[in-house]
């Protein structure tokens, strides 16, 4: 597995960050849930927010993270396949230097 990831760095970026974020996020959820349960606040929150599997508090982030994951993948692929090109702006120096190079070419032609 490690060899495979070393061979495909992009998979390594995705997997590496996935594992890190997953552990942190899950840990945070568990800690938060435990605190809320122990303090007895969770039941109030559950009732007040009507928390359930189809609650917007669960479904909206689910779809949002899916959309963001697809978006990041798309952007990543776009950058991966993009060839950088600087916007060329006409400058005084550029015009002068172009003239110098063209003179050089003309001189070479005559020679």
């Amino acid at each position, binding site marked *: 597995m490690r060899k495979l990831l070393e061979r495909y760095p992009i998979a390594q970026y995705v*997997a590496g960050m996935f594992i890190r974020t997953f552990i942190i996020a899950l840990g945070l959820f568990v800690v938060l849930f435990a605190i809320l349960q122990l303090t007895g606040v969770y039941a109030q929150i559950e009732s007040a927010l009507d928390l359930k599997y189809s609650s917007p508090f669960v479904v909206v982030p689910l779809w949002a993270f899916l959309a963001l994951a697809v978006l990041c993948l798309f952007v990543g692929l776009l950058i991966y396949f993009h060839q950088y090109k600087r916007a060329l702006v006409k400058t005084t120096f550029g015009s002068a230097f172009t003239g110098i190079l063209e003179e050089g070419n003309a001189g070479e032609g005559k020679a």
Partner: protein
Amino acid sequence: MNNEIIGNSYKYVIDTSYGINKDGFIAIGSESVVYKGLKTKQDGGLQFSCVLKFKPKSTLENGIVVNRLDLFRTEELKIFEELRECRSVVRIDDVIEDLGSFSLACDKVNGGVINGSSYFCVVEEFIDGWNLDEYCREEYWKLRRIEPLSNGLSNVVDYQDFSPEEKAAIDASYSYENVLKYQNQIMLFMINLCEIMQLVTEQKDILHLDIKPENIMVTRYGKELVLIDFGRSKKTTKANRHFDRSPSAVDYGVNETIDAMYQYGTLGYAAPECYAKASAGSDFPFSLFPGQGRISVESDIFSFGATFWECLNIFELATKSRRFVHDPHDFYRDRFLCDAAYVNRDLSCTSPHYHKKLEAVIRKCTRKRNDRYTDPENKDFYHSYYELRKEIEDAKDSAPTIKKEEDVKVKNAFSACGSMLALLAVFLMVFAAYYLMAFNIAQGKWDALTANYNDTQFYRLEGIAQELVATAPGGQVDDTYARIAGFTYRNGGDISEYEAPMLIGLLQHIDRPALLPERVDEIMRHADTRKFKEIATEVVKLEGAEGSIGYDLALAIFNVEVGKTGMAEAYETLTVYLDNPDFRSAVVKLKNVLDTDANIKAIADATGSSKLEIQEVLKNAGTKGA
């Protein structure tokens, strides 16, 4: 006459196996002639490479004889001593003031010979590698090659003289990948030189004043830079970090000596303020600005920018300008000595694949001077190598990489994708946990709500009831329904027009259809008599409950009251359940809706019974058990 120089610990000879003409010659500058040498201990032993720099003992400047040896001892040697700790500055091994009987024929110096009467020798360490110009032109882009000749000597062949096939191959190598690779290497060099100059200028207060590709060596192994030739360097102080150029003027209309015109730097690379002022009758090549002639770290930074501008444009310069290839000094002198071509240099004529931030660095280094160009508050100029290095590092981090996977933007995008997927997975787990616990959660909510229920909470109750039925495990749906229905029938009360649709809606989820008629009967038995029309409307929507008493009565009420039809069928239903005490309310409701003159007439017409007979039936309906 001999070819051996006797030094303090070593003896030196010219390395005649080195160079194109096998004469050991490396380069000639305005201050020295440089040869590759070999050093051996006085008592023999191994030979080591070194560089022998022959410098004139005295020169004539503006009609005054200048003792170069004294100048070397008092200035340059002290600078080298101070920079000895820096591995990226070339080291002086020995200074031989008396060359003894050493004599070397050299057609590049006046008199054609280097000997002890007019030259002294500085021995420097030999850097195995290329100077920056050679590296860019020969080693990287292969725009020049050395061709061995039959007589054992070599010939230099430039791109301009390559065959069409060779030119095509070189042109093809100027690709996106190679440009990025080259850009990366150049930016590493820039950062490396910044580090060296930070030590030289910012720690040791020394201005190099001759930064150019020929004075920057690239080591063969490791590609590290080594700064050479401190012949024009000046020591400043922390308090006073600049000095003023000598007031002597030159005539830019005629050929002046190189020393006079370019005392502080080399033409093409020196900052405008390093140029001598124009004498009466000639024009200074650049716009005049206050503070002109004040030489500072900004002057070295200009040369830094001009050096790397040339490196980044080397492909165009070497392939399009024969003049540059043959004599860069003349090329710069004839074409560049004006504001338009000398300052504000950019990369507009070279590859568009070089990064815009790198171009911005070059432009800022070579920016046209104004009255505040040395003011540290003026952010249009670099005033230290620290800030210059920061911006080069920023450009390097932003620039696309050759291996797309190493591009920081690609890395960030895919890492962000990984993060989003992880958060998605966490929320999927939360979703799964809630899904698995849904029935228990709904039960908890139901218990909490029903403990202190009032009618204003009906919509919440309806939501939880639907949740309970929808999430109830297989086999428990009917029991769950019974529990909900039981709550609505609490205290023997009737169900309202709101509760009926709720119960009908829940009945649609019941997984045992056989129980449906019984449930409908139950609803009809508990229906609020004032709301029969609405409740009947809901009941008839239910599929699978046909044939039950409740359903039949609801259908009859619905048809007569809402549909205004089926009076005879409704009357028949009434006669069937006339005496059923469990459904008395529904029967009374049906009787009431049928007990109109129009309905009785319609029933009489349809059944053939008399109106009196029908009125009698309606009169007695629902009386049993009342």
